[in-house]
């Protein structure tokens, strides 16, 4: 307190004029476009980038794990229900709880977030890969065998390409789901588009709510679209049956 007295003796700290804020933001209008645009670069854009990063990592790693598991089960079918049941239990765990519990194990940060997000991708990616592989007509497999293809070649040249639509459909759902769950990650640390949302839960700032909400929705819809286009490009022989995914 003595040092404080010294400061106060010289008349206290210099308190700069921080500037009057945007009028719309001050009165907490529903959506303050001007404030949003002014703050987009430092407040929202980094969150979008983080969100995309979070999602890419989770879906990629989840895919590697689930895909490998599916290939294994395709070879040794006994394990299917076992893996599927394990992976499906994650769907009953509220993400906001899972993140907190993981903090106790791996701390506050990317590792925790990714472990949680990856867990949620496993079921869908596993399921769809398997469904895709199972969907290859037996006649096609017979023909391939007849042509002298080895098991490995059958897998890589026949089964997997034909399973592609189902696999990509799985990636699509996994991606969109991950984008949704990644918003909750901000509960434990302000990363991703959930950060302005949880901030707004404390400050009541409507623009934060709406901007982050809309950005998250846009991100999900765009990701969905991109994957659909990729799917069409990669399997042009699939004439969309009544616009099915």
């Amino acid at each position, binding site marked *: 307190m003595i040092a404080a007295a010294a400061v106060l003796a010289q008349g206290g700290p210099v308190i700069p004029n921080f500037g009057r804020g945007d009028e719309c933001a001050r009165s907490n209008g*529903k*959506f303050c476009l001007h404030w949003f645009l002014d703050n987009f670069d430092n407040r929202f854009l980094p969150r979008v980038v983080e969100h995309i990063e979070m999602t890419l990592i989770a879906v990629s790693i989840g895919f590697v794990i689930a895909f490998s598991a599916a290939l294994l089960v395709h070879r040794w079918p006994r394990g*299917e*229900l076992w893996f*599927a*049941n394990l992976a*499906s*239990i994650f*769907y*009953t*765990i*509220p*993400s*906001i*709880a*899972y993140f*907190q*519990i993981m903090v*106790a194990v791996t701390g506050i940060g990317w590792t925790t977030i990714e472990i949680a997000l990856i867990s949620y991708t496993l*079921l869908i990616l596993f*399921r*769809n890969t398997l*469904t895709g592989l199972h*969907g290859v007509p037996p006649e096609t497999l017979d023909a391939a065998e007849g042509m002298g293809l080895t098991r490995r070649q059958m897998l890589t040249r026949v089964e997997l390409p034909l399973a592609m*639509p*189902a696999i990509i*459909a*799985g990636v*699509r*759902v996994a991606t*969109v789901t991950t984008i*949704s769950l990644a*918003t*909750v990650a901000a*509960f434990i640390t302000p990363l991703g*588009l*959930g950060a302005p*949302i949880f901030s*707004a*839960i404390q400050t009541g700032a*409507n*623009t*934060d*709510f*709406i901007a*982050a*909400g*809309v950005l*998250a*929705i846009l991100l*999900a*819809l765009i*990701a*969905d679209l991109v994957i659909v286009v990729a799917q069409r490009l990669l399997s042009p022989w*699939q004439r969309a*049956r*009544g*616009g*099915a*995914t």
Partner: protein
Amino acid sequence: MSDLLNFYVDNASLLLEKSVATLSIAALGLAIALLLALPSGVWLGHRHAGSFLSINISNAFRALPSLALIAIGLGLIGLSLINIELALVALAVPPILTNSYTAVDGVDPDAVDAARGMGMRDRQVLTKVELPLSWPLIFAGIRTASVYIIATTPLAALAGGGGLGDIIVNQPTYHLVGVIAATIVVVVLAFAVDGLLGLVQRAVTPRGLALPKELQTIVPAADTATTAA
């Protein structure tokens, strides 16, 4: 472990109260989603029309992040039950809509022909042939929807309160053991509701219809199987 058991003992009535609240919030969301998606899906499937529409509505709804919907609700109308219910309905509609459409649309055409041949009218074909054959897949969708809903209901604590989420978002008061305890209750509720719906499903499904492997886990594959091709 003993901490966990102690928590259950000390907070039994709190957990019970919150569970009831969670189930009510979830039930309301499921009911609205069923109302919106089940009749439409079944009817469109029956007419073999509108597949483009139903599939794309499902896809669009499925892409909507729950917390984003809640956030927009909070921004526009503030704290309210509507926020969480909106998010829950958006979650539940896709599996129910997709599955009911696909199920009814995909009923063996021979069976339908046979029914018509026997003189059944349109409505009867639906209720006596198509629906019974569709129940497994439809119920798979409803069960998936209910699991999604129950697991997401804790977010209600951010949007106006209610349910086990009040404990889960409140680690400062209930400590990690409380968060874990409440989470386990959520998981148990999800399994319980799934089991219950499974019983209902068994009751309405005609004997002789085997349950495919994909439908045997707590989150049946049906939601995803139909997204292929």
